[in-house]
């Protein structure tokens, strides 16, 4: 599939630190892409360059096969920043209409889209309410709608689920899937790893302005696997120790074990089968993204991003 967005050696330096230091990656069209990183990693700066708010100090961005031209391409992008913002005193319908028009939609098109989305997310009765009358979760929903109203090719969502209850979070999640299926590409910036694992196809992890990980979710997990398995046996064997593995934990007849270097999972299975022990279940334990995230971020802590 073609890439919708390619970043080539992007750099953005502030007076005191390198906010984004030589980051490159590709995002494929129709993907749900996770941009991960701890607070202050440079995610927001990166997103602001992608949305044309900031100009990179060096490097280039290719959008939809051509060099990124913020003035014209901006209408193909929907950006929901982490800092949510709406005009508090403005009526919701008018607000959505205004933001849609700023994105380049004509009044009638905007109206049609708003009606469609308001109906879809059960917000029709909100039209003449003011934003200050909405709860946090409700205004979050409105913000999401105003971001995707113009059916942009690229949708950038910064922490889209913060402040949403599980019901509404699911609603928005389904919409994200739906948008991806209809051909939109979604960049999803967060530090909530369980959501990333669930939603994203591809992830990039940045820390201290540098990219430290890039790949699909399963690739990344494979890359960081520690050869841990959980095994449940029909009976507890007499001599458990073997050269092939190390037992990390034992709970009755359930074991967590790490396979030693030079051995494979089959060696373990053969060991037990050879003893005539029933194997009830055997699973590989892959590290969670959360563990990988914490491990990588801790590893890079000692790296300085200040200028030398």
């Amino acid at each position: 599939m073609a890439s919708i967005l390619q970043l080539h050696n992007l750099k953005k330096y502030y007076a005191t630190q390198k906010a984004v230091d030589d980051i490159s990656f590709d995002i494929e069209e129709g993907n749900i892409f996770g941009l991960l990183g701890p607070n202050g990693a440079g995610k927001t700066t990166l997103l602001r360059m992608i949305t044309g708010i900031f100009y990179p100090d060096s490097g280039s961005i290719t959008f939809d096969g051509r060099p990124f031209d913020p003035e014209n391409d901006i209408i193909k992008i929907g950006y929901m920043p982490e800092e949510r913002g709406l005009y508090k005193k403005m009526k919701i319908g008018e607000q959505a209409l205004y933001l849609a028009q700023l994105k380049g939609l004509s009044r009638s098109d905007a109206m049609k889209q708003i009606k469609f989305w308001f109906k879809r997310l059960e917000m029709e009765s909100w039209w003449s309410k003011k934003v200050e009358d909405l709860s946090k979760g409700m205004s979050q929903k409105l913000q999401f709608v105003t971001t995707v109203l113009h059916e942009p090719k690229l949708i950038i969502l910064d922490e889209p689920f913060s402040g949403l209850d599980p019901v509404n979070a699911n609603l928005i999640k389904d919409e994200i899937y739906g948008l991806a299926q209809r051909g939109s590409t979604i960049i999803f910036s967060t530090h909530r790893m369980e959501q990333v694992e669930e939603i994203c196809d591809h992830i990039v992890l940045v820390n201290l302005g540098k990219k430290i990980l890039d790949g699909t979710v399963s690739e990344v997990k494979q890359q960081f696997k520690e050869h841990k398995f959980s095994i449940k046996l029909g009976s507890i064997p007499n001599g458990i120790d073997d050269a092939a593995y190390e037992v990390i934990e034992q709970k009755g007849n359930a074991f967590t074990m790490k396979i030693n270097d030079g051995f494979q999972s089959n060696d373990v299975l053969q060991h037990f089968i050879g003893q005539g022990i029933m194997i009830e279940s055997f699973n590989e334990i892959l590290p969670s993204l959360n563990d990988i995230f914490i491990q990588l971020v801790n590893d890079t802590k000692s790296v300085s991003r200040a200028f030398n």
Partner: protein
Amino acid sequence: MNKIWIIARREFLSRVQKKTFLYTTILLPIVIFGLYGLIIYFSVKTADHFKIAIADNAKVFVGKIDGKEDFQFVFVQNESIASLKEKIAKKELDGYVWVPEGFSTANGDTISFVSGKTVGLMNREQIQKHINNSLEQQRLLSSLQISKSQLDSMQKGRDIKFATVDGKEENDAKAGISFGVGYASGFLIYIVLFIYGTMVMRGVMEEKTNRIAEVIISSVKPFQLMMGKITGIGAVGLVQFIIWIVLTVTLRIFLPLLIPGMVETTNVMNHGATEAMQTAKNSGAFDSVMSGLSDINFGLILSCFIFYFIGGYLLYSSLFAAVGSAVNEDPQDAQSLLLPITMPIIFGIVIMTKAVNDPTSGLAVFGSLFPLTSPIVMMARIPFGVPNTVPYWQLALSMIFLILGFLSTTWVSARIYRVGILMYGKKATWKELWKWAWR
């Protein structure tokens, strides 16, 4: 361009549709005129009648004090203070003046006035004037043997006619009116700059604190957002001003009809208002005021006013926008950053007060060319006459400088604004603003 218009439209409508806009635009002039009318109404209606007894034991007044119908002076003899007080208690008298025996007008002796209730300031002045006039006449007669009217005719000065070399006669009335119109226009511009400038600043701060700036900036360029805001609020200002002018004119026409008696009073007040008017009345040439008014080119003044209104507003509002983008919620933060902006405005007012007195002085010419002060100072000079007082080249240069000035402040402000609007947390220092503008 289209996006600037969409933003301007929202800024305009969201302000005009607010109730406070309705109040300030329509009710404010009505309230002011209402108060004005009430004051006049009461000053007409409640003219007090005073019956004052004069117990002239020293015979200084020779039995005569000129009083108008409101102040009746009655000379009494052989009355004691106690009996006078009794008459006040019975409301037969409002007050009495006790002149003790041996009182002399030549000495610094004082006369006391005793009244039943406290006398208002205006009436006090009237009573004092009547008594003093009478005393003065007595003194003139007794020591110089001339009457007051003889003295007046001796002191009466002749009016001097002022004319310029090109043969145009300038009457005093015109100078007075030019002064008034110039002062008023300069001051109006000053108020405009402040009111709508701070409105722009607050709008920017609101966008920043609402965190909506980033959402909008992802759809439009910061410059478009800033210009849209400035245009929209400028339109609000223009509409507000037009409504004020229309309301003022209609009220001026209709108010006298509602309150009879006001016309004469206002006329009397106006006559007493300026020296120019008085000389006009004395020489019997009320026409000179009228011709003075017609000499002033109100069409030119109005069109220049609109130009300097817009030019000055554009010049300063972008600076106000830049300050708004550099601070957070706290208006206190804005104060210190505003100082360098308010300084030239106040400087302009200072030059303006000099310029209305001497519209061709070097300072006035400088002030009317320098773009940061020209809207205020030039508006004060224009009523004195174009091209007599303000040559065409000065007017043209001033306008060109103003346009260049507003283009450059907008350019600098846009650069500060672009960075500032996305900065949260601490307020920016001047050093940082400088860096944002020039890097």
